[in-house]
């Protein structure tokens, strides 16, 4: 069955429907919202709206004309989209034309009072008022203001009493309003204008606002038809006695203020001109077309005669604890009567937060100012300070039935972010608390020692080992032996502050325009013995990284500020309240232009490959950090927002919670002054990034009112329009960098020329590995190992046992005399035998031990960092042909550069390739990089197979691609090497860039 929803307006439309089916047609009604100004606010035959209908006899709290007008303004402000219409109605007891006109005039009068149109009001009063109107108004003024202007009975006769009352009224009016009306006994135009001012004052009072505030309310009014804001319906639409002529009915005599939602506005074609009403064309009161819902009106207080109280002004907002709230009030005739000042909040229970019985001096007739420090005397905030979350607060001045109210707020101003301390008091744990003291010290020294007191992820063990590995006294070549135990040696080093290093550059913490580096060690193979020999076993870098490195820790903290009375940023930590601070992070797009360019002289697929990899596992713009499945922490699922944060109570005193609905974590501001005085009014979190080079993060903290029962109001007070407009602070960009260094250049002999270090530095820089090449030491081989050491090595490792024939030469590794070429020995065979003798049978056998010896000399000074050794295989020798002529003078038979364990790179100076390529290549081996395509070592999956110019390939070989010819192509690390250096798990990366 089909369903069609229409309104009465659609009745003229044609609907075509299939005849054989059942169709449902639903007629919906338009919705109106109605306030009613009842008949008793008008005297018979008068259009003057009376402010109160029941002077002297009514209830203290009652609905008056002014309360209705105030309710209408409040409704308009809280429903700004709704449009209004004022409709006047009469009963059928008189002539219909008369009734029509009167209803229009009454509607116009209500509109004038409602919108503050003094001219329209006075004009109307001039033509359609009666003596009893101003007699009743004077009574109202007497009662509400305490002025001596009671005219006597409302008899519609302007006698002496009325004249006197008018004179007294004008006198009092002139005094209060600083005017100079002629003090006469007549009710003239200026008298009506003065009455109008008091109407406004009364409406403002009901709205608990000032005259200026009242104007703001009125500014929010919108009308169905701005050119026809009122209609007079005469007797057309009675509430009772429909169709009965001559019926006197107070219920039918009324003025209605109507509101309509957008799209629900009535058509006003039934009023083609003023004082015309075509009831048959009306849809507004046709119940089948419109339904009107009453708007509730709260009864307002009506003061006793001769007494008055008025809150003249109150600060809109203030910063408790830093300044006081000023409440200016005026009292009259309340001496000797109890006058109470109360501060309340809708968030508090029924008990006022603050109650003060005014003292005698404070309640004399006249002007006073009360200064409140913002400290409640009761309720949940007793002895604390009020804070923004319970806004708006209300100050109420009350005496008997007299009451005046004013609203004020406490507002947040801004956030300031900083690097937080490791402990809540910023103090080192006592040394007796050994474990936490060590964690604290390691953090202070830049070794990511883990959350102090709350280490749930064994940060400390890893950090201790990294510290030992980096420490001269505790460094062991075989880190297999490292234990995460806390030794006296460790404690002494930590106490001395040894090895202090920058873990995270500080600028981006506070400067959103800055970029700072978060440092992570670029580990090299460390274990070199037995089955655990990483260099030979070529273990997976990502796995080793994860096992050895801690994720960097960045404690972040925001200080929350309040708005002062002058809107200045004000520190008021005791008045911040438990406001929720969201902690968010952004993953910025990588700048791929930092990667090698694909040029004819230097073909490179690195950029292409990396671009492809960054899009893996849900990656792409705004999400190109290394995904979790490839070794990073980016998690493409809904929980990614949690990735770089510790949750729970890891970072005391902040409790980080998860808001899955809004995909954020948050930590409420600390309010526990007694326990955490230094953290008061702050929120904090412990960020833990990935260890992947190139990953970047920008952090944001924001004040969020989600979960507060008055969320909408709080957002309004703070100008929130969407999540982006929240009060926030953001850091600059933090980018992960791996770091290592070249500690030593050992010369056996020294290389002539140079200048390659910057190229090497830049090659690794493209993979976010910062290789410090500026602080290396240089030494001759004989400065690091002795001849005896060398002889011992040769004797132990090679077949050469005659010490007398072995010497440590400064210019070549081979330490024995070279065999002479045989007379019948061909040049090719002699070369090959020299190569075997000095290579396979010598250098290959002693290289490990030479590294050991070098490490023994170097590591006590430089625990970590590369040791790059330049060397020549043997001394140069002439090679002859079998005919005795020289085939090659100064021959050196082989060249082999290689990487060794413990960050050693052996660089053969005869190597024909560009030095930066060779050094970069051999150092790459220590960074877990394996050979590429044209070597004998072809492990699957380690390289971009479509990139034939990887540094990790051999440059010259009898097979493979013709690339990297020295002087022709400049090689670069392929995309897979690049990502592996960053820490990506290359086993799971695609095989090529195509």
């Amino acid at each position, binding site marked *: 069955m089909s369903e069609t929803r229409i309104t009465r307006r659609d009745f003229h439309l044609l609907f075509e429907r299939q005849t054989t089916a059942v169709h449902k047609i639903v007629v919906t009604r338009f919705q109106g919202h109605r306030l009613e100004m009842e008949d008793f606010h008008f005297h018979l035959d008068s259009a003057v709206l009376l402010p109160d209908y029941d002077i002297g006899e009514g209830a203290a709290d009652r609905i008056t004309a002014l309360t209705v007008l105030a309710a209408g303004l409040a409704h308009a402000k809280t429903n700004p989209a709704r449009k209004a219409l004022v409709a006047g109605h009469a009963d059928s007891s008189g002539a219909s034309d008369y009734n029509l006109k009167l209803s229009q005039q009454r509607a116009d009068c209500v509109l004038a009072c409602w919108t503050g149109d003094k001219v329209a009001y006075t004009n109307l009063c001039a033509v359609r008022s009666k003596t009893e109107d101003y007699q009743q108004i004077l009574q109202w003024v007497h009662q509400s203001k305490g002025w001596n202007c009671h005219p006597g009975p409302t008899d519609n006769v302007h006698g002496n009493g009325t004249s006197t009352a008018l004179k007294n009224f004008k006198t009092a009016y002139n005094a209060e309003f600083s005017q100079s009306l002629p003090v006469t006994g007549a009710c003239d135009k200026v008298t009506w204008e003065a009455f109008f001012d008091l109407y406004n004052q009364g409406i403002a009072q009901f709205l608990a606002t000032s005259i200026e505030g009242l104007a703001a309310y009125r500014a929010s009014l919108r009308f169905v038809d701005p050119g026809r804001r009122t209609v007079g319906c005469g007797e057309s639409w009675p509430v009772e006695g429909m169709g009965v002529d001559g019926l006197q009915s107070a219920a039918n005599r009324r003025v209605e203020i109507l509101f309509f939602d957008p799209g629900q506005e009535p058509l006003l074609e039934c009023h083609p001109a003023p004082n015309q009403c075509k009831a048959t064309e009306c849809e507004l009161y046709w119940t089948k077309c419109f339904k009107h819902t009453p708007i509730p009106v709260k009864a307002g207080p009506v003061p006793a005669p001769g007494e008055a109280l008025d809150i003249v002004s109150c600060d809109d907002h203030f910063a408790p604890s830093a300044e006081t709230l000023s409440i200016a009030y005026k009292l009259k005739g309340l001496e000797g009567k109890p006058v109470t000042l109360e501060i309340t909040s809708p968030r508090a229970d029924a008990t006022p937060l603050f109650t003060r019985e005014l003292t005698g001096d404070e309640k004399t007739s006249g002007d006073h100012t009360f200064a409140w420090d913002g400290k409640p005397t009761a309720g949940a905030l007793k002895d604390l300070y009020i804070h923004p979350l319970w806004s708006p607060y209300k100050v109420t001045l009350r005496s008997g039935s007299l009451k005046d109210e004013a609203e004020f707020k406490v507002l947040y101003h801004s956030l300031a972010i900083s690097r937080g301390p490791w402990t809540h008091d910023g103090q080192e744990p006592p040394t007796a608390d050994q474990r936490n003291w060590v964690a604290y010290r390691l953090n202070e020294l830049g070794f990511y020692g883990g959350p102090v007191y709350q280490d749930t992820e064994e940060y400390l063990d890893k950090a201790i080992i990294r510290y030992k590995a980096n420490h001269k006294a505790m460094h062991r070549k075989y880190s297999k032996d490292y234990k995460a135990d806390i030794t006296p040696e460790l404690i002494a080093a930590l106490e001395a502050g040894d090895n202090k290093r920058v873990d995270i550059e500080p600028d981006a913490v506070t400067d959103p325009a800055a970029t700072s580096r978060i440092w992570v060690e670029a580990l090299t193979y460390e274990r070199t013995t037995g089955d655990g020999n990483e260099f030979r076993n070529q273990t997976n870098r990502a796995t080793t990284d994860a096992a050895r490195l801690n994720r960097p820790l960045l404690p972040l903290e925001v200080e929350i500020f309040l708005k002062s009375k002058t809107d200045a940023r004000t520190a008021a930590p005791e008045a911040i309240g438990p406001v929720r601070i969201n902690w968010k992070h952004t993953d910025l797009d990588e700048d791929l232009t930092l990667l090698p360019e694909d040029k004819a002289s230097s073909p490179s697929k690195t950029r292409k490959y990396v671009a492809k990899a960054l899009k893996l596992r849900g990656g792409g713009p705004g999400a190109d950090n290394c995904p979790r499945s490839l070794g990073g922490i980016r998690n493409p699922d809904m929980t990614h927002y949690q990735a770089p944060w510790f949750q729970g109570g890891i970072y005391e005193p902040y409790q980080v919670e998860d808001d899955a609905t809004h995909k954020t974590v948050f930590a409420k501001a600390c309010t526990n002054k007694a326990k955490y005085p230094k953290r008061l009014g702050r929120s904090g979190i412990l960020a833990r990034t990935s260890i992947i080079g190139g990953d970047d993060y920008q952090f944001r903290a924001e004040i969020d009112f989600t979960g507060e029962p008055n969320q909408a109001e709080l957002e309004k007070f703070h100008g929130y329009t969407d999540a982006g407009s929240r009060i926030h602070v953001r850091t600059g960009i933090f980018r992960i960098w791996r770091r290592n260094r070249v500690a030593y250049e050992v010369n056996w002999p020294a290389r002539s020329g140079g200048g390659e270090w910057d190229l090497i530095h830049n090659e690794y820089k493209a993979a976010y590995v910062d290789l410090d090449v500026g602080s290396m030491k240089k030494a001759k081989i004989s400065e690091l190992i002795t001849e005896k050491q060398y002889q011992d090595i040769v004797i132990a490792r090679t077949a*050469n046992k005659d010490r007398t024939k072995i010497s440590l030469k400064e210019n070549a590794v081979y330490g024995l005399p070279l065999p002479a070429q045989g007379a019948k020995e061909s040049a090719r065979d002699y070369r090959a035998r020299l190569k075997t003798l000095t290579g396979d049978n010598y250098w290959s056998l002693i290289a490990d031990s030479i590294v050991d010896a070098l490490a023994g000399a170097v590591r006590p000074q430089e625990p970590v960092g590369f040791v790059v050794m330049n060397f020549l295989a043997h001394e140069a020798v002439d090679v002859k042909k079998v005919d005795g002529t020289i085939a*090659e003078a100064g021959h050196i038979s082989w060249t082999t550069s290689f990487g060794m364990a413990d960050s050693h790179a052996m660089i053969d100076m005869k190597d024909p390739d560009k030095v930066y390529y060779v050094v970069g290549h051999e150092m790459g081996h220590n960074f877990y990089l394996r050979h590429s395509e044209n070597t004998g070592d072809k492990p699957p999956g380690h390289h971009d197979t479509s990139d034939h110019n990887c540094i990790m390939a051999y440059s010259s070989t009898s097979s493979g691609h013709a690339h990297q010819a020295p002087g022709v192509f400049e090689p670069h690390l392929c995309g897979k090497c690049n990502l592996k250096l960053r820490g990506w798990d290359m086993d799971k990366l695609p095989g090529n860039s195509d």
Partner: protein
Amino acid sequence: MPFQLQLAAAAREITTLDSPQLLLTLSHEEDQPRLVPSPSQDGGALTILFRDAGGAPVRRVSSLLEQELRTNARVDANLALEPLAPGQPLTWTVNLAKCMWPLAAGDYTATATLAWPGETNPVASAPLAFRVQPVALDDLTVDRDNPILDRLDLLLSAGGGHLWLRQLNPSKPLGAWYNEALPALPGTSNHFCAAAAFRQVESFAPAMHRWLVWQNGALLQAALFEEGRPTSDSRRGQLPVGRQLLRQGFYTAGNQLYVLFWYAAAGRLECCELAAAGLRPVAAWPLPVSDPGLLVVRCLDGTLHIAGPHEGLTRWTADLSGRILASTRIHASPLPLRAVALQPEFDRCTALFSAAEAPATVEMVQLDPRYQPEPFVSRRELSLPGPFPELAMDADRQGRFHLLITTLSRELYYCGPGAEPRLLAAGQERYFPSVLAPGQVYLGFYELTAGFRFRQFAASADPPGFLEYRNL
């Protein structure tokens, strides 16, 4: 075409154990001398492409491949040019033993091509046809010593006293220093090579010398070879009565040649010098060995190094006056000893124990004090039915053992560290397996159609397998 390149062969019909020797002649017809690649350093300018009978390329060799197959250092691709005068052809020989392993049985053509920078048109020879015949290997002895270079000599024996001597670099045994067919010794037996008992560094000449010893009836004969070619130095002597020739011997830098016997009646090892005048007893050492056939004896600088089956594996040192200097039990095993190898220059000893009972168990031991004072030991229960007629093993410096075994069902398996046995070949009566694991793993074995060769096994390749250097 200004240049002509001619290719000829010393023999057009060879066996799977031979290495072709090719003769190249380069000439030109121009008036002025031309620069051509020097045969002593041609930078890979000369390539020789082999095609099978169907014309399909089989492999391409060059001086670059020669380097790659014989040593581990980086290939030197430097090219030297030398002038070639008009009418004075340049002739040189290429010994393919150095840059290729023997070809499998079949018909082939070889084409030489010379191409070098500056010469636009490569110079190519006419194809040269030749045939490779299969040959049945009867025996293989392997000797490793280190007079100046670490060398591995293979003595390959076929029927009718046909012998080949092939010398390899144990660090890269893919190309040979040489591979020569020796003069036939019909009716002889018990051929073996003596090992150098000395080390010097002044000359490579000792690396090229090998004493070959053999039995000819009641005579023991020996001859000195230089790169597989006979020299004038030969010796003979009457075999002593009642002694078992151990097929092991050694010689000094002064070419004093010693051979070893086991005298079962006295339970002792005896050493005799084979001099020009005949055999001369030198010394004897009583040894409590259970199976003298497993004794391994090496001599270095006057000290005898002996390893053999006694309480597992025991090692002795002795001098040439008959004194036992020291005795050390290296490893005790409940399994019987099957093979032992010694490298006295490194004090290195490897041994293999195995039992035939199910489950077939192999225990491998390597003592190499350069890397670890205590022996590396690996015991494996193999998922293969024993007994194993042939076993060969080597270990690398990390103590990882690589094992080749043959089964009674004529299958050859490689058992890598931690890996299941991998079938390499089947159907052969004997494979004469040999393993070298200096870092890379080289597996040597014989097949009738392919001869004997070492091949590089890449366990980290995907899939694991032999690395070929076909260079096509």
